[in-house]
């Protein structure tokens, strides 16, 4: 009898289900709230992608008198430059959503990387990276963004990078916590014992388990980013050549839409931001709850209110 036969074969750990399997089984697809949010988001994304192409002419083209009230030809009236508000709104959707998605992606990459490294390696790496995160968590993000935007110029790329480089902190903490639990799971330990290197462990075993949560968090980040863009742009720090929803709010303010009582130039862009932010929150929160049931804390929880951070040091 050889030694190999004496050693009892370890039970083969069942590979964790893939992301899509889990998504199909998860309550996300059955949760009405997430579906509604996802539907709204999809509608806006389609508008952002195909709307500008479908427009018959440049959105900022003067088509009528300044601040004309809504009519059949211009269902949302015209703005302070005599351009059609509906066209501007459609054009703005593409820029606002681009900033939202791109900045959220930047945050996800930075936050995901920091969280993964800190959680996986632990020890000094963990302490150093989390200290860094803690400092960034405390520095007020909106003023920081404004200052950086004022110093580094007004292109769309800059704005995306600035927002992305500032909002990664909450992601890093969340991903770190998740990585720490995954690292200790049996199949990861077994892979390590079988000689898998760190890179392989992270890429093949930890990352797939962390990705769903990262995606859910990114959906939430889209809301933060769209929100932040309106701040930066409102202070005159937006890209001067691009029309976003933030820019439309700024224009309405600068062109004295209020003195002209032109509610149609003020209400729609802000409402669009609000609806998209709500949709992102609904979707992201429902996804996060589904991926990580332990985080779930009821129908409407404090965590829903996370555009600004609460409580201190929470993930």
């Amino acid at each position, binding site marked *: 009898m050889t030694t190999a036969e004496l050693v009892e074969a370890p039970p083969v750990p069942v590979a964790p289900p893939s992301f899509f399997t889990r998504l199909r089984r998860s309550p996300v697809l059955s949760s009405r709230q997430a579906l509604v949010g996802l539907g709204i988001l999809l509608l806006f994304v389609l508008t952002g992608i195909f709307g500008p192409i479908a427009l018959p002419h440049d959105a900022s083209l003067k088509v009528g008198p300044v601040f004309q009230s809504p009519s059949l030809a211009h269902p949302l009236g015209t703005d302070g430059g005599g351009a059609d508000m509906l066209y501007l709104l459609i054009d703005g959707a593409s820029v606002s959503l681009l900033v939202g998605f791109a900045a959220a992606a930047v945050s996800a990459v930075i936050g995901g990387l920091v969280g993964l490294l800190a959680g996986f390696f632990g020890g000094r790496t963990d302490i150093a990276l989390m200290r860094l995160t*803690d*400092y960034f968590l*405390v*520095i*007020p*993000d*909106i*003023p*920081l963004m*404004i*200052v*950086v935007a*004022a*110093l*580094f*110029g007004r292109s769309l790329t800059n704005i995306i990078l600035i927002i992305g480089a500032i909002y990664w902190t909450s992601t890093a903490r969340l991903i770190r916590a998740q990585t720490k639990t995954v690292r200790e799971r049996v199949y990861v330990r077994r892979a390590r014992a079988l000689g898998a290197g760190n890179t392989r462990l992270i890429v093949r075993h930890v990352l797939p388990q962390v990705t769903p949560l990262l995606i859910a968090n990114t959906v939430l980040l889209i*809301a933060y980013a769209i*929100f932040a863009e*309106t*701040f930066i742009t*409102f*202070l*005159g*720090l937006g890209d001067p050549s691009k029309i976003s929803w*933030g820019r439309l*709010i700024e224009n*309405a*303010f600068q062109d004295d839409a*209020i003195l002209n*009582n032109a*509610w149609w130039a*003020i*209400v729609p*862009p*802000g409402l669009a*931001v*609000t609806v998209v*932010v*709500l949709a992102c*929150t609904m979707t992201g929160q429902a996804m996060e709850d589904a991926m990580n049931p332990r985080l779930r804390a009821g129908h*409407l*929880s*404090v965590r*829903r*209110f996370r*555009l*600004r*951070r*609460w*409580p*201190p040091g929470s993930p």
Partner: protein
Amino acid sequence: MTGLDYVVKRVFFAVATVLVAITLNFILFRAAPGDAVSALRCRQCTAQFKEYERKQLGLDKSKWEQYWLYLQDLAHGNLGSSLRTEKPVTTELWAPIENTLPMIALGTFFSIVLGIVAGVISAWRRGTAVDKAGLWTSLGFYSMPPQWLGLIAVLFVAGALGLPTSGIKDPTLGILSNPSTWTVIVDRLKHMVLPALTIGLVLYGEYALIVRSAMLETLGEDYILTARAKGLSNWSTVWRHGLRNALLPVITLVALSLGLIIGGFITIEYVFSYPGIGLAVVEAIDQRDYPVLQGAFLLLTLSVIFFNLVADLLYFKLDPRVTE
């Protein structure tokens, strides 16, 4: 970990964060393309003047020397001088701070009152349509860009209530007659109401949720049952027995929010042309007055760090279990 350990740790963290913030403030403004002087926009800014200003600011020295000078200046409470008015930044920022503080206090007051009322009603009618509608309303307000909410307030509320929509005082006040103190105070308050209300609406959702969950917990306690058994009215049970105990978590949240408001009130002050610190930031950006911008940013950051520390310590005082 003992209580003292916790306090020391939090204070140490706050001090370290201050150092990081100070350094970040230095690096950001030095790493920007061009320097403070080259970006300056003014009429009298000739090349000669700019060279002189550079020397004045020490921009011709090495980075390390500059950093050391910067730290020394800070230690003396010197934030430099405004490039526009040549006055010290601290003097430039003093009046805006004085204007901002009462407005923020009023805004916080509005949000607390709204939050408590909404939270208590939600908890009392938990699970009903009233509860859900209340929570979704607060979430809705929370998702609105504050500057836009300000514009909406000007558009739809100001006219109806006859409130002024810009500035901090009536420019005609005191020209013809000497107004009484009371008139001046009322005038100031009137100018504060709309921006404060905007802050209140944006923020009350957080308080509402905290009060709601704290109330739900409290309403399940035995002494509430006792109060009911004694035959006390609903009103008395909820407000006198329930709310009083549910308010503890709100106190820490207030300290935290004071720091968080800062993000929102820059744009709110801009909308209402309210001459506070937010408007000072906007003007400094507009005129590329870097020393003022740098000073304001440092001030905002330090106040956030301070209020975070206060929140941490208050939280510990109210609930010593946090050290575990």
